[in-house]
């Protein structure tokens, strides 16, 4: 249930300051010495901070643990070593208060058809039920049923993995639905707000584009090989998956696949810490032509594959134990067919009529291309307190149609906030989270097609057990 008010003349100070003070008071009053995916923390007796730079973002040790198939490699990984009552399950949810404001909402009574709309109120995040771990030494699984805030479930992750095949850390295979292998993980982002919770580049689709399949941030269904050096300094992976954007039952193409390749190298820089640089490439094809029945596209009938690609660099740089930067870049390109809004017509992203049955490309259509980057900074005062910011920019370099404004769809996104864990143990996770974010996309307001901006203020209690 959502409780909220709408007001054009919102008094920010009147609502936010008392709430902030109350929250800070509550947090400080129970302050003790901080946390992680507690299912693993409970299993191994490590505090969350051992694996997480700031929960849920992984640090180097946590990345190595994950790359080893959720194993510490201390010969205590198999479940036979656990107390029989150990149950590897974690629940995560975030009750919060937020203020959401959008500059141009379509409103019937507004003179231009648009006006600013601001909503404040208490709310809930979705629920993640995370369960994962080893089935036997070098055999592990991850299962994450997730619900949106209204309780509608889907499977965010479901995979089994086989690690250290032939006793080699270079042979690890994963099959199922999984997060693509970027060491900068959106699933583990520190940001939670409506306008700043996502990495825009992980989901960017040009305005009017019909390609939902190239979203780096969506978990995909397929198989992945991953190899790494013993100390995880060098990591390589290659995945192949159905071009379905992670949807089950292969609802789109008959033979549409995407590949994702990633590699990175870490190196020590003495007192500064361990730096990691890498790159990724995603290349795939997805359908633009569907058989129809009664005019309705038939699931799984898609042919007429067209291509898309995403490539970029990523880096995680430390300037001592307290300060780090994540840098992510992307150059993206879609086939002109997608740019003309062919492709995803099953769920209504593009109109049903955009069914490529003639093979004739709409006049003037060309491949949309774009470039983007973000820099996320974390100042980790202590394992219990992290101050963060992210600045992200996406710029179209070629529109699908020359008649489009050159900056149509460009995005600017800025987030700043902090997470404070009032206590930290190896049993559960709890963080007070305060974040402000602002986003603007060019030319996408619903009525006038002018710039659209939104901002969010979030005060939440992020917990998992």
């Amino acid at each position, binding site marked *: 249930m959502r409780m909220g008010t709408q007001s054009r003349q919102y008094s920010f100070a009147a609502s936010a300051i008392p709430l902030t003070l109350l929250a800070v008071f509550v947090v400080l009053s129970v302050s003790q010495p901080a946390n992680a995916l507690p299912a693993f923390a409970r299993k191994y007796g490590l*505090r969350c*901070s051992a694996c997480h730079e700031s929960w849920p973002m992984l640090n*180097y040790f946590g990345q190595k643990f994950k790359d080893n198939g959720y194993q*510490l490699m*201390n010969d*205590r990984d198999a479940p036979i070593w656990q107390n029989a009552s150990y149950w590897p399950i974690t629940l995560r949810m975030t009750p919060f208060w937020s203020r959401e404001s959008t500059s141009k909402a379509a409103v019937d009574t507004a003179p231009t058809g648009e006006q600013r709309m601001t909503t404040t109120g208490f709310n809930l995040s979705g629920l993640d039920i995370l369960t994962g771990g080893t089935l036997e030494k070098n055999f592990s699984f991850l299962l994450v049923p997730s619900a949106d805030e209204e309780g509608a479930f889907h499977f965010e992750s479901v995979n089994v993995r086989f690690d250290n095949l032939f006793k080699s850390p270079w042979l690890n295979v994963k099959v199922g639905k999984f997060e693509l292998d970027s060491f900068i993980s959106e699933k583990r982002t520190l940001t939670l707000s409506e306008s700043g919770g996502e990495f825009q580049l992980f989901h960017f689709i040009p305005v009017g584009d019909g390609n939902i399949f190239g979203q780096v941030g969506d978990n995909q269904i397929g198989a992945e090989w991953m190899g790494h050096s013993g100390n995880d300094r060098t990591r390589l992976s290659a995945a192949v998956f159905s071009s379905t954007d992670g949807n089950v039952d292969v609802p789109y193409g008959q033979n549409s696949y995407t590949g994702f390749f990633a590699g990175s190298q870490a190196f020590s820089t003495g007192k500064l810490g361990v730096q990691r640089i890498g790159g990724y490439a995603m290349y795939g094809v997805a359908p633009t032509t569907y058989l129809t029945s009664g005019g309705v596209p038939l699931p799984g009938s898609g042919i007429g594959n067209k291509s898309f690609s995403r490539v970029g660099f990523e880096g995680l740089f430390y300037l001592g134990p307290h300060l780090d930067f994540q840098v992510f870049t992307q150059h993206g390109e879609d086939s002109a067919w997608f740019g003309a809004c062919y492709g995803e017509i099953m769920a209504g992203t593009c109109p049903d009529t955009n069914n490529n049955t003639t093979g004739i490309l709409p006049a003037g259509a060309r491949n949309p291309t774009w470039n983007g980057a973000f820099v996320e900074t974390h100042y980790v005062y*202590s394992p219990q307190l992290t101050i963060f910011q992210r600045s992200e920019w996406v710029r179209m370099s070629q529109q699908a149609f020359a008649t489009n404004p050159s900056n149509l769809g460009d995005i600017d996104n800025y987030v700043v906030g902090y997470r404070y864990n009032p206590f930290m143990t190896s049993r559960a996770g709890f963080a007070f989270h305060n974040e402000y974010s602002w986003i603007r996309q060019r030319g996408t307001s619903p009525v006038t097609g002018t710039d659209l901006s939104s901002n969010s203020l979030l005060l939440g209690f992020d917990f998992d057990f």
Partner: protein
Amino acid sequence: MRITLHKSLLCTAAVVMVFPLASLAQQTKADFEARIGMESHIGHVTGHAKSAQYDYRRYCVGCHGDRGDGMGENFPWVDPKPRDFQLGIFKCRSTPTGTLPTDQDLSDTIGRGLDRSNMPPWNVFTDQQKADLVAWVKHFSPRFASEKPGTPIQIPAEPEVTADRIKAGREVFARVQCWKCHGVTGEANGPSASTLQDDLGRPIAAFNFTEGSRPKCGSSDQDLYRIFMTGLDGTPMPSFADNIKPDEAWDLVFYLRTLMSEPSKEKAIAKQLGLKPVDTNAPAQPSGQQ
């Protein structure tokens, strides 16, 4: 009167807030502050205890505790129990029994981890991080302030494996009664195995050579040699430096390889020889006889 009451309440609040902090500060000061300048020297890297506070809190404190006494929040739940750094007694050393380990020894333990315990291999740390943590570990124990580490034992060059050496190693295994704890087949089921306790009176298991685990203090031939020549201080595993000659120690290393589950040249030779487990009823032979 109101003002006086107000002031009184403020003073009381101040005292209530300050006393626990002062008390905590005193404990820390009394126990450890004098040694906070502790350094470690590993290769060309100098570690500083002060610089490791952040990493210790992030990675180690859950088991080893704020005061390094092994009484972190996980103490009740983990087995073996976390090391009590305040005692200054360490299993994995290159130095003779009873002496302090070198800084390199402590760094190696951090990087290697301790198999079959909750201590994982922290080989993601930089050399500097490990050196700082070594200094931090040392600052918990007064021993490191008053004693120097022992001199690392000399490990002679590893000889060629031969059938005779393996047979000789078997005799050493019998003579120094390794089987009493480790069992005649190396399965940790010797007659004394169930009675073993560490120096703190906690039950402790002998190493099972047959289940594929890595020995806690390293798995190379040199590591095995070192383990029984230095002993594992704080455990029932003694040093055999006074009982085994260096050549015999290598023989024993080769024999132990035959007990391990991993394929090895020694194992192949033992199979060809049809080598049987030691006979615990056979009369003991003096050193040097086969």
